[in-house]
C-alpha cells in the first residue's frame, strides 16, 4: 500500500496520517488520552486490572481530611468537632475537647497567633471564624470548675523530662494522664521557661498559675525545680526527653551521658527566632507519642510530622455574615459564632454527582461498599450493588475530585467484574441488550460504500434513526452533497449498552465488527453523529480515525442573518470529552441566527439527561430526579444534539429541538414532536434501512430474518403507554400470543372470555391477557417479570 501524504480534507481538523498495518501497542494506546483526568483509562480487561485499587482511592480521598483551619493549627485542633458541639449547644463538651487538645487552655486562648484564620473560607463571605475567642470563652466558663478526676491505670513505666518549658510540661502532663510515671527536672526556680518572659498584659500571671495547677496535683507527675541535670547517669527511666532550648554543645557532660542511647531524645536545633508558645505545646504533644512508643517497645522512630492534606474548599457561595463578638460574650454569642462556620469538607464529588448525593453516602463509604460488593463474604450482602448500577457514566466526577478518584471507572469496572462472575441481574438489562442486537441485526443494520476505498464513513449511531429516520437520511444527504459524494455509511450500534451492562465480551464483539468493516474500507475518516458513540470509540476503539460530525456541518453551514430568538444549548454528558462538538453546535446556532443563553451546567459541566448507564432499569427514581434537575436549568428552548436527550425532554413537555430539526426542517416547528414509543423506534430503524437501501442501491435490501407471521394486534393508547414505560415491545406481545394460539398454551377466564398466556423470552417472562374480536386480538393487559417459573414442558 503506497503511503499517501496526509492532507486534511476537513477544515479545522488536523490531518491524521494513514497508518500501516498493525494496531498500536497497548502502551501507546494508554498514552494517547483525551483530557479526562488522571485516572481515565482504556476499558481494562478484567483479567489484568490496571486501574488503581479501591484502597488506594480510599486513602487518597479527602473526605474526612481536616479543613484548612485544623490543618494550619499547630495543635491539630479538631475544629469540626468543637464547632459541632457548640452548634448543638453542648458547650461543656466543647470545653472538654479544647482542654484535652490544648493542655493549657488559658495560655493557648490568650497567646495563639491564630494561623487558622489565614485560610478560613468564611473570610470570603464575612470574616474568619473567631476560634481563639471561642476558646477563651470556653476557658472562662470552665476555669473555676473543678476538673473531674478519673481513674488512670498505671503503666509502670518511667519518663524523665529535663526542662519545664511549655514543651516539657505539656508532654509531661499528657503522659502522666496516660498513666506513665513522669519526672520533670527544671534548672530554674519556676515553671514555664520563656513563657515567663512575656509581657504580663498579654498573659496574666494567674492564668498561667491556673493552667499549671493540675501539674502540682497529679498523681503520676513529680516536678523538681532548682536542679540542674548534669548527667543522666543518676536517673532511672524508660524514655527521656531533653526539653530545654539550646544546643547540645552547651551541655557537654549531659550530651556525653546521652550519646548513643536510643531512649533519650533531644530536639537538636535551638529554637531560634520568635518564641511561639503554641508551637512549643504542639511539639510537646508530638513528643508524647515517641516517648510512649519508646517506653513500651524500647525504641521509637522519629518520623517527621506529616502535614495532613487539607481539604480545598470550593468557592464559597454563602451569603456574607460578619461576626458580632461582644466584649463580654455569653453562650448565645459563642453559639452564633459557631453557626457562622462553614464546616469545610471536601464535597467535590458529591457536588458534581446526582447519584452520590441521592445515596447520602460519603465517598469513602461508597468505596467500601463497592469493595464489599466485589469481595463478597459468604452470607453477607453486596452493599454497593444499587450504587454500582446507578451510575449513569456521565463523567462529571472525573474532573471534580481533587484527589483524582475516577468514580465512573470504579462503577463501570465493577459492573464488568460482577458480570464476569455472573452476579449482575441480567434480566434488568435484557431490553437494552436486545435493542443492541436488533440495531446490529438483519432488520436494522446496514452498510454501504459507493466505492471500495472511500475517504469517509458516516456512523450516525442507532438512536438517531430510531427517533426519526429523516435525521439520518437528511444528514447523510448533506454530507454527500457538501463534503464527499462517495461517503460510505454504516448503521450499527456502537456497543454502549453492552459497556454499561458490564458485558465486556459483547462490547468487544460489536467493536470488532465495526473495526473490521473500517479496515475493509481501508481505514477512512469516520464521522460520528452521536457524542456517546464518539466517546466510546475514543476510549475503546482508539485506532479508529473518528471525528465529530458537528464541526463538519458547522463549517459548511452558511451564515444566516435573520434573528430567530434565543435558546440554550443542552450538551449531552458524553460531549464533555469532545469540546469541539460543543463549540461547533454553538457555531451552528449562531450561524442559523440564534442567540445562545448558556445554561449553568454547560460545556465541561454537562449533565446526564437520565438516559445513560441504563439506570432506567436500575434506579428509575434517580433518573426522574435527574430529568427534573435538568428541566429547571433554563427557560429557553434547549438546543439538543443527542436524540435521547431530545426525546427525553419532549416526553416531559420541554421544547428541545434537535440541531438536525433546525438544519433539515427549518420551516417546521418540531420542538415538541412526541418521541416515538419503543415499537415505533424499531419500526423507524427498519424503515430507515429499507429507505436507505432503496435510495442507494435501487432495491430494498434483503433482510436475513424472515418476517415472522404476526397476528393482528389491537392496543389501546393506555396499554401502549404502559408498555412503553415497562419496556415491552409489540413483538414481545405478538410472540406470546402466537405461541399460545399455535400450541394451545393458554388459560381461559370463563367469566370474561379472555385468554391469558405467557412466554419466557431471554431472561424475562411476558404475560398477555387478550380477547379475540372480529379476527383481531384485542390486548387487555401486558406485564412481565424476571423470576422464572419452573413449568414442565415450557
Amino acid at each position: 500500500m503506497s503511503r499517501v501524504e496526509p492532507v486534511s480534507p476537513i477544515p479545522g481538523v488536523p490531518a491524521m496520517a494513514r497508518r500501516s498495518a498493525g494496531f498500536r501497542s497497548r502502551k501507546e494506546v494508554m498514552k494517547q488520552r483525551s483530557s479526562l483526568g488522571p485516572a481515565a483509562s482504556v476499558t481494562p480487561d478484567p483479567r489484568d486490572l490496571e486501574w488503581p485499587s479501591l484502597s488506594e482511592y480510599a486513602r487518597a480521598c479527602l473526605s474526612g481530611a481536616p479543613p484548612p483551619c485544623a490543618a494550619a493549627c499547630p495543635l491539630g485542633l479538631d475544629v469540626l468537632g468543637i464547632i459541632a458541639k457548640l452548634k448543638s449547644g453542648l458547650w461543656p463538651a466543647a470545653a472538654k475537647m479544647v482542654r484535652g487538645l490544648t493542655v493549657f487552655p488559658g495560655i493557648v486562648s490568650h497567646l495563639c497567633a491564630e494561623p487558622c484564620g489565614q485560610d478560613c473560607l468564611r473570610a470570603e463571605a464575612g470574616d474568619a471564624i473567631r476560634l481563639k475567642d471561642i476558646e477563651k470563652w470556653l476557658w472562662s466558663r470552665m476555669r473555676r470548675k473543678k476538673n473531674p478526676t478519673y481513674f488512670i491505670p498505671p503503666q509502670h513505666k518511667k519518663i524523665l523530662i529535663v526542662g519545664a518549658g511549655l514543651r516539657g510540661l505539656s508532654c509531661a502532663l499528657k503522659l502522666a494522664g496516660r498513666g506513665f510515671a513522669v519526672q520533670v527536672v527544671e534548672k530554674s526556680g519556676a515553671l514555664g521557661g520563656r513563657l515567663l518572659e512575656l509581657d504580663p498584659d498579654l498573659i496574666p500571671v494567674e492564668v498561667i498559675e491556673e493552667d499549671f495547677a493540675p501539674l502540682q496535683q497529679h498523681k503520676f507527675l513529680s516536678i523538681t525545680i532548682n536542679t540542674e541535670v548534669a548527667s543522666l547517669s543518676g536517673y532511672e527511666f524508660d524514655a527521656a526527653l531533653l526539653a530545654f532550648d539550646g544546643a547540645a554543645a552547651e551541655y557537654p557532660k549531659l550530651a556525653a551521658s546521652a550519646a548513643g542511647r536510643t531512649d533519650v531524645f533531644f530536639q537538636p536545633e535551638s529554637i531560634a527566632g520568635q518564641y511561639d508558645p503554641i508551637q512549643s505545646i504542639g511539639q510537646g504533644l508530638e513528643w508524647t507519642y515517641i516517648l510512649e512508643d519508646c517506653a513500651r517497645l524500647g525504641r521509637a522512630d522519629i518520623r517527621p510530622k506529616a502535614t495532613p492534606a487539607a481539604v480545598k474548599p470550593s468557592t464559597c457561595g454563602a451569603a456574607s455574615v460578619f461576626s458580632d463578638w461582644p466584649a463580654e460574650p455569653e453562650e448565645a454569642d459563642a453559639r452564633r459564632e459557631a453557626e457562622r462556620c462553614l464546616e469545610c469538607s471536601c464535597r467535590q464529588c458529591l457536588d458534581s454527582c446526582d447519584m452520590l448525593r441521592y445515596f447520602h453516602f460519603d465517598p469513602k463509604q461508597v468505596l467500601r461498599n463497592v469493595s464489599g460488593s466485589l469481595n463478597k463474604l459468604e452470607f453477607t450482602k453486596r452493599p454497593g450493588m444499587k450504587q454500582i448500577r446507578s451510575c449513569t457514566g456521565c463523567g462529571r466526577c472525573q474532573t471534580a475530585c481533587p484527589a483524582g478518584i475516577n468514580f465512573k471507572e470504579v462503577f463501570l469496572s465493577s459492573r464488568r467484574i460482577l458480570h464476569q462472575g455472573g452476579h449482575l441481574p441480567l434480566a434488568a438489562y435484557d431490553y437494552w441488550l436486545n435493542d443492541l442486537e436488533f440495531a446490529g441485526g438483519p432488520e436494522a443494520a446496514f452498510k454501504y460504500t459507493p466505492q471500495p476505498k472511500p475517504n469517509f464513513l458516516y456512523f450516525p449511531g442507532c438512536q438517531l434513526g430510531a427517533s426519526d429516520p429523516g435525521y439520518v437520511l437528511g444528514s447523510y444527504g448533506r454530507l454527500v452533497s457538501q463534503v464527499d459524494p462517495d461517503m460510505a455509511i454504516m448503521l450499527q450500534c456502537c456497543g454502549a449498552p453492552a459497556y454499561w451492562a458490564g458485558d465486556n465480551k459483547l462490547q468487544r464483539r460489536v467493536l470488532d465488527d465495526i473495526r473490521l468493516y473500517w479496515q475493509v474500507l481501508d481505514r477512512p475518516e469516520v464521522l460520528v453523529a452521536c457524542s456517546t458513540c464518539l466517546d466510546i470509540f475514543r476510549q475503546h476503539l482508539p485506532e479508529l480515525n473518528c471525528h465529530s460530525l458537528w464541526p463538519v456541518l458547522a463549517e459548511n453551514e452558511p451564515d444566516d442573518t435573520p434573528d430567530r430568538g434565543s435558546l440554550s444549548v443542552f450538551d449531552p454528558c458524553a460531549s464533555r470529552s469532545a469540546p469541539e462538538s460543543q463549540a461547533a453546535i454553538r457555531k451552528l446556532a449562531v450561524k442559523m441566527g440564534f442567540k445562545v443563553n448558556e445554561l449553568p451546567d454547560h460545556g465541561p459541566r454537562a449533565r446526564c439527561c437520565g438516559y445513560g448507564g441504563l439506570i432506567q432499569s436500575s434506579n428509575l427514581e434517580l433518573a426522574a430526579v435527574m430529568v427534573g434537575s435538568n428541566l429547571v436549568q433554563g427557560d429557553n428552548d434547549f438546543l439538543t444534539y443527542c436524540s435521547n436527550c431530545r426525546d427525553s425532554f419532549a416526553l416531559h413537555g420541554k421544547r428541545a429541538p434537535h440541531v438536525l430539526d433546525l438544519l433539515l426542517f427549518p420551516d417546521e416547528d418540531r420542538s415538541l414532536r412526541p418521541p416515538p414509543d419503543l415499537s415505533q423506534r424499531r419500526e423507524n430503524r427498519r424503515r430507515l434501512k429499507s429507505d436507505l437501501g432503496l435510495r442507494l442501491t435501487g432495491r430494498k435490501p434483503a433482510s436475513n430474518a424472515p418476517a415472522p407471521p404476526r397476528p393482528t394486534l389491537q392496543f389501546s393508547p393506555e396499554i401502549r403507554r404502559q408498555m412503553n414505560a415497562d419496556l415491552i415491545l409489540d413483538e414481545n406481545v405478538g410472540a406470546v400470543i402466537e405461541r399460545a394460539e399455535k400450541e394451545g398454551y393458554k388459560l381461559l377466564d370463563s367469566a370474561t372470555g379472555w385468554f391469558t398466556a405467557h412466554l419466557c423470552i431471554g431472561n424475562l417472562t411476558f404475560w398477555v391477557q387478550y380477547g379475540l374480536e372480529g379476527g383481531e386480538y384485542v390486548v387487555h393487559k401486558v406485564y412481565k417479570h424476571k423470576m422464572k417459573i419452573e413449568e414442565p414442558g415450557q
Partner: protein
Amino acid sequence: MTEERPPKLVCCQCWLELQPLKTTLNYMGHNFTVELPRCPQCGLTYVSPELAAGRMAEVEILLEDK
C-alpha cells in the same frame, strides 16, 4: 399470596380448572416455593398482574441489590 377476585381460570389444553398448587420460582440463584393456580394435569401456571407488579417485583429488587 392471594388475589381479591380470583378469575375462574381453565387450562385450554386440558379443559381443567386451575387449582392452587406448589410452584417453584427462581431468580438470581434463589428458589422460592409458592402456591399458584396451576392446571392439575399439565402444570400450566397463572401469575396475576398484581402479583407480578407487587410481591414478585419487590423480591426481585431485593435480590438484585443484594
